């Protein structure tokens, strides 16, 4: 017996088993990259531009180099000047960033070098001693200014459009004419910061004589980072090893190589092979990592009087900052998500991702879906209102359904959106509360209820032609099971969920499993933790590996007992003869047999999975991007104080089609966490800039959700058992914050009849709108 809990965790799929890494986390023993140090380790710091836009004329580090304690200084001249980007495969023209900029800097904080020294203080002193001559260029930090003719050119891109995505289906003009009701709305969704508790941190080590590079990194995508490092350092993939330890949150900011990762490796080489650690402080994290794209949606859409959604048209502008990062795919997702949610034949939306001289926008939990969720779901409520239809009735009429192919060729199999809406409506007593019925409407405090719906992919090809995951399930002679996966658990609990899948596939207790995750030299390839893909894609790879290991064991048992292998199975720790439903031998005994004198065979199961998708043309939006789709409906009940403009959430309901909950407790944690994040984004999270500089780069001035103020939440899990999912499961890490802002904004309109179209919804905006409403009423 390897663990006293072995009985408790038999058939683990669908059970809330505790986190596989939980004991280490609650005792503080688990090591994050932030906790790591090595003998002779140096501290690295980036040399950054103080200017929003400037030409680099000369860098003189001669004085800094002589400062005692300084071990290495690097600039572009130490590099191969190879550009990198994050959507290279689909958008090669957006590969626009150098690890260390050579000619030009494009935002305050842009990296043009790095220093390694014996401590941080010395590194900072050295940076202060480096003399850099700039030719300051005119800068543009507002997106709508940047697209005007004559605005400063940040890259070689017309009107500073880094990405233009014109998506066009059907005949929008005709559909607008045929609509009974047409309306135009403009929405603005603000920039936000990821704020992982563990900031960006890495340790680079370049062994001089073997030329072997190791990077310990707090990352969501170690294999992606390896690829970019190899490209920019001009090394082979197998020269580089990226190791992920526990990660203190990512939320999209840790999906790519940053210049700091490149610099840590190169500084290590230049210092003679000493390991170099670079760790962002909170201000650097806010100012120089990644941020959520601020987006402006300008929409004009039409409906029939019977509620048929005819057409959506418009433009989307996204503030991209100095470089493209994941901007192209974020923009594609921000436009095309609607096809997963609504049956729509006519759509004409053009997306413009705009370069500005501000920090880089990239991927953030929701991937464009939070901004589009706010705009589209607010817009839908207004369309329904325009024809006098209940928002739920309107949505029910237009939503996608199971087993359909959408206008842009998404192949939707399981789809629980209808059930999600029905369940959320029933749980929240929608019919009783909607429509400002008098009994919950006081003189000052007024209540309202609103809905938002959403859908999400389970993976997306973003930087490679495939998006496969691999798993290895190794069973030792003592019956212990080791799962090797390249998937990166960044806190969502994927190590636990994948271990549950491995145990279930093998037919054994979860207590047997140990998970070794994400080391590019040891674990199989995996594209990373993004697009809610891990449970679905890495889960399927793990399922296949578990099944493979099981077959290896059963083959030996069948041989020994002269039985047909097809008649055998492992269920709940026992090898079963399914023909007569009799127990043949225990799992432990079976393993003894595998490793016996007669057989001596190691049990090493392998699994690979690449979802069944069709080629997607990101430019047109056509193609089946994901192997499965997840759905949800969210309802918010709010109370508005008409004196102070304060909005309090009474309760939120989230009904979620998750296929099958591998670990219900983990799923609820993801949903509740996403909801809380969505609430923060709705009311107060707002990364602010002045002349390109972040002006609130700390927790005192950038408010985050805390325990106090987190409202009551109810999660309803809808299990549609997706035919493609491992044990029917879908991914769900991101989707719960997609409709939150709109559900709240829609509830506010229900409460007091005002419509806020610009995030965040502050008390000041509420008071202003309430005043305008009063004036209109009096006038």
């Amino acid at each position: 017996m390897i663990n006293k809990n072995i009985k408790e965790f038999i058939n683990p799929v669908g059970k809330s088993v505790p986190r596989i890494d939980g004991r280490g986390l609650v005792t503080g023993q688990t090591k994050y990259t932030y906790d790591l140090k090595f003998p002779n380790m140096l501290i690295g710091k980036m040399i950054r531009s103080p200017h929003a836009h400037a030409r680099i004329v000369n860098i003189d580090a001669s004085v800094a180099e002589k400062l005692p304690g300084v071990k290495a200084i690097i600039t572009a001249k130490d590099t191969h000047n190879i550009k990198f980007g994050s959507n290279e495969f689909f958008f090669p023209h957006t590969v626009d960033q150098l690890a260390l900029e050579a000619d030009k800097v494009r935002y305050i904080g842009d990296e043009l070098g790095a220093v390694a020294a014996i401590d941080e203080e010395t590194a900072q002193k050295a940076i202060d001693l480096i003399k850099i001559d700039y030719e300051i260029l005119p800068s543009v930090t507002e997106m709508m200014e940047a697209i005007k003719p004559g605005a400063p050119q940040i890259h070689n891109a017309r009107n500073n459009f880094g990405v233009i995505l014109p998506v066009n289906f059907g005949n929008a003009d005709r559909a607008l004419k045929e609509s009974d009701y047409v309306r135009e709305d403009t929405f603005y969704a603000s920039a936000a910061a990821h704020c992982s508790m563990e900031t960006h941190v890495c340790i680079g080590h370049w062994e001089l004589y073997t030329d072997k590079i190791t990077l310990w990194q707090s990352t969501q995508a170690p294999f992606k980072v390896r690829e970019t490092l190899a490209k920019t350092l001009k090394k082979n993939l197998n020269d580089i090893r990226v190791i992920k330890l526990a990660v203190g949150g990512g939320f999209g900011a840790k999906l790519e190589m940053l210049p700091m990762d490149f610099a840590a490796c190169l500084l290590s080489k230049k210092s003679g092979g000493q390991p170099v650690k670079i760790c962002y402080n909170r201000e650097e994290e806010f100012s120089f990592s990644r941020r959520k794209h601020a987006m402006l949606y300008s929409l004009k859409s039409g409906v029939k009087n019977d509620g048929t959604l005819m057409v959506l048209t418009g433009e989307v502008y996204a503030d991209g900052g100095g470089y493209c990062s994941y901007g192209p795919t974020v923009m594609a997702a921000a436009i095309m998500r609607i096809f997963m949610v609504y049956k729509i034949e006519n759509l004409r939306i053009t997306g413009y991702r705009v370069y500005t001289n501000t920090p880089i926008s990239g991927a953030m939990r929701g991937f464009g879906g939070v901004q589009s969720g706010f705009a589209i779901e607010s817009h839908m409520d207004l369309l329904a209102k325009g024809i006098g239809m209940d928002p739920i009735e309107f949505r029910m009429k237009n939503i996608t359904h199971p087993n359909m192919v959408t206008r842009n060729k998404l192949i939707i199999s399981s789809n629980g959106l209808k059930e999600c809406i029905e369940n959320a409506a029933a749980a929240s007593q929608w019919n009783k509360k909607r429509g400002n019925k008098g009994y919950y409407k006081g003189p000052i405090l007024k209540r309202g209820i609103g809905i938002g719906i959403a859908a999400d992919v389970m993976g997306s090809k973003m930087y490679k032609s495939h998006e496969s995951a691999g798993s290895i399930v190794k069973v030792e002679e003592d019956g212990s099971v080791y799962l090797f996966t390249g998937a990166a658990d960044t806190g969502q609990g994927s190590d636990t969920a994948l271990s549950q899948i491995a145990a279930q596939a093998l037919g054994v207790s979860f207590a047997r499993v140990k998970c070794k995750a994400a080391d590019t030299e040891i674990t199989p390839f995996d594209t990373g933790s993004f697009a809610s893909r891990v449970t679905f894609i890495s889960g399927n790879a793990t399922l296949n590996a578990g099944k493979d290991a099981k077959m290896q064991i059963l083959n030996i048992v069948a041989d020994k007992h002269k039985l047909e292998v097809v008649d055998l199975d492992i269920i709940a720790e026992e090898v079963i003869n399914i023909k007569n439903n009799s127990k043949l031998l225990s799992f432990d005994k079976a393993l003894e047999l595998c490793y016996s004198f007669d057989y001596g065979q190691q049990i090493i199961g392998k699994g690979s999975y690449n979802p069944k998708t069709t080629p997607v043309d990101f430019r047109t939006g056509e193609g089946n991007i994901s192997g499965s789709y997840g759905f949800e409906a969210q309802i918010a009940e709010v109370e508005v104080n008409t004196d102070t403009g304060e909005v309090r959430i009474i309760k939120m309901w989230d009904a979620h089609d998750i296929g099958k909950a591998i670990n219900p407790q983990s799923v609820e944690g993801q949903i509740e966490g996403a909801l809380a994040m969505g609430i923060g984004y709705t009311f107060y999270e707002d990364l602010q800039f002045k002349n390109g500089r972040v002006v609130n780069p700390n927790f005192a001035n950038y408010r985050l959700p805390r325990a106090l103020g987190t409202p009551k939440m109810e999660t309803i899990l809808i299990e549609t058992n997706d035919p493609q999912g491992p044990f029917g499961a879908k991914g769900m890490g991101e989707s719960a914050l997609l409709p939150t802002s709109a559900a709240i904004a829609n509830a506010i309109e229900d409460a007091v009849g005002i419509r806020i179209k610009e995030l965040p919804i502050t008390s000041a905006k509420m008071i202003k709108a309430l005043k305008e409403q009063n004036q209109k009423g009096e006038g």
Partner: protein
Amino acid sequence: MDILNINNKDYEFSLTGYETLLEVLRDELGFTGTKTACSEAECGACSVIINGNSVLSCITLAKDCVGKKITTIEGLAKDDELHPIQQAFLDQGAVQCGFCIPGMIIATKTLLDKNPKPTEEEIQIGLDGNICRCAGYPQIMKAVKHASKIINKDND
């Protein structure tokens, strides 16, 4: 020579007076369970218990802690047994990325030591200095309530 009593054990140092308690814990002693996510007293990840109070070690000078009783996250579990609060956090799914959890558990211990049966609002206020970006607050709240139940049962 300065002596710091950490988790019931004395450690000798010669402190310059400038070191924060956080630096001494993490860099000198390897008690890396205590984290920081801001270094400016906003996030609560660096919380430790000093003489029964939850204190932010990132803004506390180590020298000021001489002669006081310091408890870190490493000092809660006894032998192989998790502290009931740690067990409750594990059982209730209150742990996501885990980076804030040592601070959350320290804040919870301080709260429950002073107020073993806190109301919902008292828990929220007790944890208000601690940020969890995974925002697992509902499950953290459940864990605190559960821990309170267990601790009170043990004491009855």
